[in-house]
Each structure stands twice: as C-alpha cells, then as structure tokens.
C-alpha cells in the first residue's frame, strides 16, 4: 500500500456476508498487482474443485503507485479459468484502479456464492452485499444504468458487471468495467455468474496526503513528458491499435476466415483508417492516462419499421477487428461494430467469440455439423446469422451452442475439426500470424494471451529467426511483464516504464528497490504462477498446436510444425530449470 509497509486486503464471503480485513507485510515482496494477486490466488485456490465451485476465489489487485503516476491504470483479476481449467489472469482499465486505491484497498478476495443474485458495494467505510434479483438477466448496459442511479458516489465510482453470458456460465464470459473497458478473457464473467454476483461497485474518496511532494511531482512530470512526447503514444491515441490492420494484412499475417487465409481481400475496408473515416466519433481514456486510446465508433441501426433509427456507439480495437472481422470474413466496419455491440451487451469476450464462430463456420462448411446444430446457416461474412449465433451462445440455446459456450477446444473435442480449432492452451488465439513468436508466445504464456510476453512482436523485431534468441527473448519478457503488471502499468506504456523509471517511481513513494531486487521479484512472481498452473494440472508439453498454423502462410513464410514443438520444449526446459533453482 502506498506509504505503508503492508498490503491491505478485503476478504468478502458472499455466502455468510461477512468481511475481513487483512494487513500482510509479508506480501510486500510481491510488490502488488499480479504479484500479490498470484500469491493470494495460491493461498485461496482449491485445485481439487471445479472452476465454478463456490469455494473458488476471485482476486482483484492494484499496486502502490496505481493511478498517481501516468498510465499506471490497470487492475488485475485472478481466478481459476473455466475456459482453460488453469490460471486465469485478466486486466482492465477504466476507473477501477483509482477507486480501489482511494477506497483504501490493495486487493479484494471474494469467496463463496451468494444465496440469490447480488451486487457488492465497496466504499471507504462500508462493504455491503445487496439484492440484485431484478438485475439478473439484464445486459451489462442496463444493469450499469440501474446501479448508477441507485448508488451514490458518482464521479469517484467504478461499476463492473456481467451480462447474460456470465449468468449462463459461458466459459469466456467477460466483465464490463465502467464503459468500454473489460476484464475480457478467460471467463471471469462466468466465475462471477457462478457466485450469483451480478456486479461490484467501488467508491473511493479517502484523504491521502502526498508524502514527498517534490520528489513525487518531479518524477510525475518526467514520465508525463515521456508519455505525451513519444510517437508510440500518439499512435495509440490517433488511430489506435487498429493501425495494425494494414501492415499485418500487407505482411500476410492477418488471420482471415478461421486462418484459412492470412490476407483479407477486404482488409482496406476494415483498416484503422477506414474506421477513422467512417465511424470514429470519440476517444476516451482510463483514469490516470493522458493517452486516451479508447476509440469509439458509431453506426446507424434501423431498430423498427417506419424509419426508426438509432445511433449506436461501441469501443473498437485491433483484436476485435480481427476476431469479429477478418477472422469471420466480415467485410465492413459497420458490420464489425454491430458484432462488437452484440458481444458487449451479452457480456462475452470478443476475441474468443470470434474465433469460436470461425471454427463453427468452417465445421459447418465441411458438414461435420449441420443446421440441426447451428439453427441458422453459418458462412463467412454473413453478419446477421453471426449475431443470432452469438445470442444463442450467450443463452446456451441447444446442445451445440452449449458446447460452443465452452470454447473452441471443447466444441472440437466433441464434434471434430481439431486441426482448425484455433486455440493455444485452450484459449482462443489473437490476431497475429506473424511467425513462430506469435504461436509460441501464446502457447507458453502463463495465461495464453498474446500479451503475456508479446511473442508476436519478436517476429517483427528479430532480423533473423534464431531458436535460442526467440526462446530467451520470450522468457525474459514474460518475467519482466510480471514486474510491470505488479504496479499495475498499462502495457501500452511498457517502453516508458523501463527499470530506471520503475525504480524512480517506487523511490518517490518511499519504496527503494535495486535493479537486482526487481529482477528477483519478477522471478518470484513467475515461479508462483508456474506452481499454480502445475497444481491445476497444467503441463506445457500437453499443449497442442493446431495444424492450421502450419498450413497457412505466415508473415515469416510457411511454418514448420516440428520446429514449433521444439521451441515449446526449449522454453519448457528453461522454465523447469528456473523452478529447480532456489
């Protein structure tokens, strides 16, 4: 906790409605954020029980410097993922970090299952579990509106909530944070749903004098300048991550139509510039960030006969343009925004939803499933049927859609087509078919995300492919991000927060760490994650790499399956070696 030598934890039991405050000096060696959350998950997890068992915990955590420095904006959530069955780790921006910080908590641990649908309110001096029965079944938008009206604290409040998908335990259900932000991946929405927890609101307004203003503000200004002066930040603000569509498509790295292709003939239609020209209406930021990378696109929809039109605004980013765009052969920016809105309202992870539907479309094409299963015919580019399919997934409409709701890995186990069910470690893939880095990065990443270690970026930065260099680079970055995610920095600012800057930031709030100590912390956290994964039955060499990766050209040419498995083995050896060191 800032200016203190302990980590302050709020424990909430939804069943007994009792809370407990913990002050843990011993957790300071995990710094905060993902470090503290990993340790708390390790302590509270029940590996022998199902992810949806009421005894499983949800852990939220922030860091000591959260929001009082630029772009240190995120909150981490850790849990047992219902999608992968193992480590669940998810990040969200919005206002959650600031409100937890000013409510006075470094971490929140939620256990148990509420007797009936409830929502949790956390303020500086009260914690309550309230009746949410009337909200059960509502979209995240509607539920948010009701809570906003009902609860005090506007302006210093964060509201996170699940949609119908989470209530129906869809394994990649997401949690909507404030507006346009999410805990997207790995199914936190389902875990909240399994606890009858519709929403959590946090109000933060405690008094918190600055300890060493001169030092603090000096560092603040330096970082602010770096953040606002660099080109990288202007990219995130101007066009945003959708700037990636054009170069990835040109390089032959844009997963298209279930990765049957890596170039999309309609790529220009859905490029970042296209969205800017046709749909962009607003940009927003998370609390504490001067960049403002949230891009809001608008489309018009006729919702009733008689020219009844409405303007619908949704946040869009590169990963969504890939998953609900090129991956499904969807050709226009408007249609992508429509799909994003559907996914948003129901509370689903956009990436997993798109990739799951990609598998389903190809399976339908190959006739291993028929309209008996899909109800509506699925075809690449047919947006209106995709919208229906997404609704069916969220409600688990029939046996087939219930299987889809469990993920592409599960569905392909049941119906076939494993070779083109694009998952790594049971988590659906991200939008980079750049080379070995992209595949291995997500296969070995602790949470199987492209953000674990940014493997895909090494395909771009490494001039020549070298197995040892790639494996070492991924390993080093995976550990380093354990440190960044303990503070909890938004990874868009990872280049600004080098070791020197991190030391300066922590130093100005009274926490001095040497470079070696920071390295030790990073490794300590990574080891804890590996221990958890092991206890949940994860074995790196069990991970299968879908054959489709090696059938479709990547930006680095056609990839070799044997080489990929070899890289994974090399990485695993490095991890095992790390685990045996004291």
């Amino acid at each position, binding site marked *: 906790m800032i200016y203190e030598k302990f980590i302050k934890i709020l424990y909430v039991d939804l069943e007994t409605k009792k809370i407990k405050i913990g002050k843990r000096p011993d957790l300071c060696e995990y710094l905060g954020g993902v470090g503290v959350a990993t340790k708390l998950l390790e302590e509270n997890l029940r590996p022998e029980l199902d992810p949806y068992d009421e005894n499983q915990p949800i852990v939220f955590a922030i860091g000591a410097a959260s929001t009082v420095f630029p772009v240190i904006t995120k909150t981490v959530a850790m849990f047992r993922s219902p999608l992968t069955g193992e480590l669940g780790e998810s990040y969200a921006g919005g206002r959650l970090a600031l409100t937890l910080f000013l409510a006075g908590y470094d971490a929140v641990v939620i256990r148990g299952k509420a007797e009936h649908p409830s929502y949790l309110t956390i303020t500086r001096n009260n914690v309550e579990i309230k009746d949410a029965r009337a909200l059960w079944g509502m979209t995240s938008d509607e539920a948010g509106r009701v809570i906003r009206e009902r609860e005090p604290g506007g302006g210093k409040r964060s509201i996170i909530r699940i949609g119908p998908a989470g209530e129906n335990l869809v394994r990649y259900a997401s949690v909507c944070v404030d507006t346009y932000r999410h805990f997207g991946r790995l199914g936190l929405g389902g875990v909240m749903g399994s606890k009858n927890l519709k929403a959590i609101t946090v109000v933060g307004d405690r008094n918190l004098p600055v300890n060493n203003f001169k030092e603090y503000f000096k560092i603040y200004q330096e970082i602010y300048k770096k953040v606002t002066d660099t080109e990288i930040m202007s990219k995130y603000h101007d066009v945003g*991550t959708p700037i*990636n569509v054009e*170069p990835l498509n*040109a390089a032959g790295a844009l997963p298209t139509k279930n990765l049957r292709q890596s170039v999309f003939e309609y790529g220009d239609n859905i490029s970042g*510039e296209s969205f800017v020209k046709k749909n962009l209406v607003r940009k927003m930021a998370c609390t504490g960030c001067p960049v403002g990378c949230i891009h809001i696109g608008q489309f018009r929809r006729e919702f009733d006969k008689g020219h009844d039109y409405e303007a619908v605004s949704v946040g869009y980013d590169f990963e969504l343009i890939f998953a609900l765009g090129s991956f499904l052969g969807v050709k226009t920016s408007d249609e992508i925004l429509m799909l994003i809105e559907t996914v948003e309202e129901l509370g689903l992870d956009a990436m997993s939803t798109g990739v799951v539907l990609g598998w389903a479309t190809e399976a339908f094409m190959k006739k291993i499933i028929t309209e008996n299963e899909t109800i509506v015919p699925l075809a690449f580019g047919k947006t209106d049927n995709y919208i229906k399919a997404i609704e069916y997934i969220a409600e688990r409409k029939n046996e087939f859609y219930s299987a889809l709701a469990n993920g592409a890995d599960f569905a392909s186990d049941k119906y076939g087509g494993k070779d083109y069910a694009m998952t790594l470690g049971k988590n659906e893939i991200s939008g980079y078919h750049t080379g070995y880095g992209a595949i291995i990065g997500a296969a070995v990443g602790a949470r199987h995300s492209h*953000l674990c270690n940014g493997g895909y970026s090494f395909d*771009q930065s490494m001039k020549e492919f070298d197995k040892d260099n790639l494996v070492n680079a991924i390993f080093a970055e995976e550990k380093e991000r354990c440190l960044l995610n303990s503070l909890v920095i938004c*990874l868009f600012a990872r280049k600004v927060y080098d070791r020197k800057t991190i030391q300066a930031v922590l130093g100005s709030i009274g926490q001095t760490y040497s470079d070696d100590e920071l390295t030790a912390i990073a490794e300590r956290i990574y080891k804890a994650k590996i221990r958890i994964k092991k206890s949940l039955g994860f074995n790196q060499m069990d991970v299968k790499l879908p054959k489709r990766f090696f059938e479709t050209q990547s930006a680095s040419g056609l990839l070799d399956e044997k080489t990929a498995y070899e890289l994974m083995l090399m990485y695993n050896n490095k991890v095992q070696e790390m685990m045996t060191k004291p």
Partner: protein
Amino acid sequence: MIIYIELSEWFKRYTDENTRFEIELKPGITALQAIISIGIPETEIGLITVGDTKVAHDHILAHGDKIRVYPIIIGG
C-alpha cells in the same frame, strides 16, 4: 535512378500530408535509406514492400522500384 514511394496514411505527419513520392537517388541505396531520405524516422518504419513483395530493410533498390511503407505493429 528514380524510385516511387507510397506511404501509409499514418506517415502524413512527417511529410506535410504527402503520401506519394517520386525521388531521384544514387544507385546502391537501400530501401530503408530511401524512406529516411523523405523524412520518416527510422524507428517508425515497419514493413517495406517493393512491387508488393516484402523486402528486408537493407534491400538494395533498382531503378523504377515502387516501394510501399507501413508503420510498425504496436501491441495490444
């Protein structure tokens, strides 16, 4: 030799809104050097294609080559 360069829209901020260039360069110059010569910072240069084929940054150019330049891939 004459080289044609076409830039992604994003690079307009460095070139006074121009995206198409026809420039005269000495033979032996690399793709990267050609692009830098019109004012693009090296750190911003991502994929380079010559006549729709991807090339390395140190690819030696020939007379009449049509270069396309894309920004680097950012994360997230």
